[in-house]
């Protein structure tokens, strides 16, 4: 009799624990979804940190590499993306436009392809998208330097001194990118009222 009471108690506790863990996880899901919708900063590297330096192969230019620190003096976006990433595909034309608009003011976007599909297909994709800035071939080591890059797209905005001034995880809007670009260029982060708001938001 006593055993069966304990067993029933155990079942009740187990079911309660299951329901509680499910509720907790659901709440975590909602929090993380909300967080990603807000496009928050990731922990590593943080705003104010020096951007971790790297040297990576440049797509389509045999043997040529690019070192991030060689861009000191410019406002830089390091945009991690992949061919299999649909939100990246939406963001790339915005970056192309922003490179055109802010290039003369000292902006340099670099795309880092975090992609295992091979140089040929990355190159074809970049060409199809009309990318007008260098594409580098990402490595696990660089991904780790930038916090593991679980989700794409992820962009790090770096000022002229090499400090990270903003981080965007996930797609947001063209105007949000533009605000962060202004921070990189030392123009402050206020929104330009003439900025075209992205159709995605």
């Amino acid at each position: 009799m006593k055993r069966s009471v304990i067993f029933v108690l155990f079942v009740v506790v187990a079911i309660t624990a299951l329901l509680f863990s499910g509720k907790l996880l659901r709440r975590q899901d909602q929090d993380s979804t909300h967080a990603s919708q807000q496009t928050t900063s990731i922990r590593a590297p943080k705003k104010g940190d020096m951007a971790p330096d790297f040297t990576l192969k440049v797509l389509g230019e045999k043997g040529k590499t690019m070192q991030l620190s060689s861009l000191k003096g410019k406002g830089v976006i390091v945009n991690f993306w992949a061919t299999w990433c649909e939100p990246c595909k939406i963001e790339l034309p915005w970056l192309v436009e922003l490179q055109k608009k802010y290039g003369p003011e000292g902006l340099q976007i670099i795309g880092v392809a975090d992609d295992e599909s091979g140089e040929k297909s990355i190159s074809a994709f970049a060409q199809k998208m009309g990318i007008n800035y260098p594409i580098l071939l990402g490595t696990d080591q660089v991904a780790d330097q930038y916090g593991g890059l679980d989700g794409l797209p992820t962009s790090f905005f770096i000022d002229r001194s090499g400090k990270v001034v903003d981080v965007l995880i996930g797609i947001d809007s063209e105007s949000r990118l533009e605000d962060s670009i202004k921070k990189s260029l030392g123009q402050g982060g206020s929104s330009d009222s003439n900025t075209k708001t992205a159709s995605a938001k």
Partner: protein
Amino acid sequence: MKTNWLALLGFILVLSGAVRAQERVTVDHISDLTVRLGHSAPLNFTIHIRPGFHVNSHKPITPELIPTEMFFTPPEDLVIAKVRYPAGEEMSFPFDPTNKLSVYSGDITVRAVVLPQPNASPGRYTVHAELKYQACDNNSCYPPKRLPVAFNVKVSSGAGRARARATRTSPHIHN
């Protein structure tokens, strides 16, 4: 003492359930299968996609997108055939409301059959498989993953099985 073991088992189950629930995609455990020589047995993989996430269907809309796919490495004596994927659901997402993607979300089932080779030896086999998927949410996409899956298949000889069935059914005949 037995109760303690039950409590421990329950705790492990709860814990593993919580851990599994944190994965973006999980596949249900496949119970041991039995298949007779010369026959096939159905094989169902129930795949759970965490709420808020989606994966590409088996036939995504563009070649750059990574399809959801099962890869099997059966032992030489077994064949996995007739792998059937559900049709994708055409959905648009906030990052591109004007376009529709072919995706899976929620729970889906991938079906297949397992059959022994004609010269297979009766016995117990383990089949290793992998589910390849690439998940996204409304803002981000996550690197493609391969989720390992393993299941056991018992191959019985046709004659043995027939004898076993004869003995098992005989009492019912008398009823």
